[in-house]
């Protein structure tokens, strides 16, 4: 991999929390290099440190050790972040919410409006610019959150179980739209999910993490043709990968001598 396509370099990053009864390891040292424009899925059970890893990359939390290097040339906001819930400002309209990162960065109103309106159209919310978040469904709110995370054009998009709160059918639609957005914007995307199907369907590579202590177990390359769609879900290779991911998650991680939990 050449130097120029590298986007995120994670070297020996780990995280421990200090609790009442001593320190808790949230994440054992992780090392991985992510290329520019790559779509990475991170799967694992609760408590495997996948959200922690995302928060470390975003700078919301600080690592206990190791280094994270983002190839984003000193941008003030290198990452866009989509939370599990939309986290929209309920007193602002959809347009104002999507425009919020631009407004707070001092971008002119005309320019910000143009960007925001384009994004709203891209995520399929055209006609709802003036609506308040409470007037939209959960799936629509999450679309707005995605549009907001893209509005100041960050090279990296971090998504922490973004579709876990929406119903399955909406989720399928949103997955396809996410792929479309990824293809048209060329962002580097890291998506955390519980769903192995979703992970395999979307990603170039899938990071499998295991819990207690949270650690990166293995990384799978996903050799499925793009663009992906309903045909992908019929592909035997897709099913083989999903089955492999399930096995990875079921068998406990490399023996730590702690036995059953």
């Amino acid at each position: 991999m050449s130097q120029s396509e590298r986007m995120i370099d994670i070297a020996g990053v780990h995280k421990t929390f200090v609790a009442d009864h001593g320190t808790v390891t949230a994440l054992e040292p992780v090392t991985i290099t992510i290329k520019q424009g790559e779509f990475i899925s991170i799967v694992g059970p609760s408590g495997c440190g996948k959200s922690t890893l995302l928060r470390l990359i975003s700078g919301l939390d600080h690592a206990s050790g190791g280094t994270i290097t983002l190839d984003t040339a000193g941008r003030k906001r290198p990452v866009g972040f989509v939370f599990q819930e939309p986290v929209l400002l309920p007193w602002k309209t959809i347009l104002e919410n999507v425009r919020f990162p631009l407004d707070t960065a001092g971008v002119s109103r005309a320019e910000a409006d143009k960007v925001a309106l384009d994004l709203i159209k891209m995520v399929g919310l055209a006609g709802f610019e003036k609506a308040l978040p409470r007037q939209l469904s959960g799936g629509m709110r999450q679309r707005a959150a995605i549009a907001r995370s893209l509005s100041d054009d960050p090279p990296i998009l971090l998504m922490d179980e973004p579709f876990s709160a929406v119903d399955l059918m909406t989720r399928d639609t949103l997955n396809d739209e996410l792929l479309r957005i990824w293809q048209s914007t060329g962002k580097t995307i890291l998506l955390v999910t519980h769903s192995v199907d979703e992970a395999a369907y979307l990603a170039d590579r899938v990071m499998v993490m295991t819990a207690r202590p949270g650690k990166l177990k293995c990384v799978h390359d996903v050799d499925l043709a793009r663009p992906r769609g309903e045909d992908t879900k019929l592909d035997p290779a897709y099913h083989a990968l999903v089955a492999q991911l399930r096995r990875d998650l079921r068998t406990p991680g490399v023996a730590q001598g702690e036995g059953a939990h």
Partner: protein
Amino acid sequence: MIRRFTAWIDYALALAVLLGAWWFATGPMAMPTYLLPSPLRTWNALAGIAMSGELWLHLGFTVQNIVLGLILGLVTGIALAYVMTRFPKLAIWVDGPLVILQTAPKIALAPLFVVWFGFGILAKIILIFSLVFFPVFIGAVAGFRTLDPKMKDLSKLLGLGHIQRFRQIELPSAMPEIFVGLKIGAVQALVGAVLAEWMSGKLGLGYLMTYAGATYKTPLLFAAVLLTVVLGLLMHVVLTMLENRLLSWKGAKR
């Protein structure tokens, strides 16, 4: 629209019944004027001071004190609540004195305020302020404390400065709770204003009441009392309108 209209009709009917009963008591029942002046006499007393300009002086003074006290209490209440939620260490120090001040009946302190701050406007505004401050403060503390932690993440991700974070996220999300405090405080402000004018000074609706009472001008007393009631209603209407405007995003009110 129709709903609002019928509500107005209800109010008007209730008012008419009240007025009718009042008139009946003074007319056919022949209650003496020094106990209960007739609606007409009360109206004449009101019109009299309105014509002479005296009314506007008193009303203006009371309204001015209420508005100043409200603004002062609102700003200080929000500011102190914000500082305390930002610096929890400080809260430990400030909590005790605040509880003592909060539970002390401000009405009982009113004479002290006159002694300390004189017969002028200062003592009056301080009394109103002390009544408005606590409900606003408590509401604001509740509002700032219940801020969604994800909102904090959002402001951190966007690298918002303190002022941006306060104006764009923290203040608006605490607004519903602040408004609860403000509405309680507004009622208290009116009580405080009238009470302060009873005790000292030569201006205000409260002064008008004590003057009318002392000189047995019962129609004038009635006019002053009614004006105070109307003023309270008006404040309620203005605050409700403001609330509907500022908090329409909550969607609970119609």
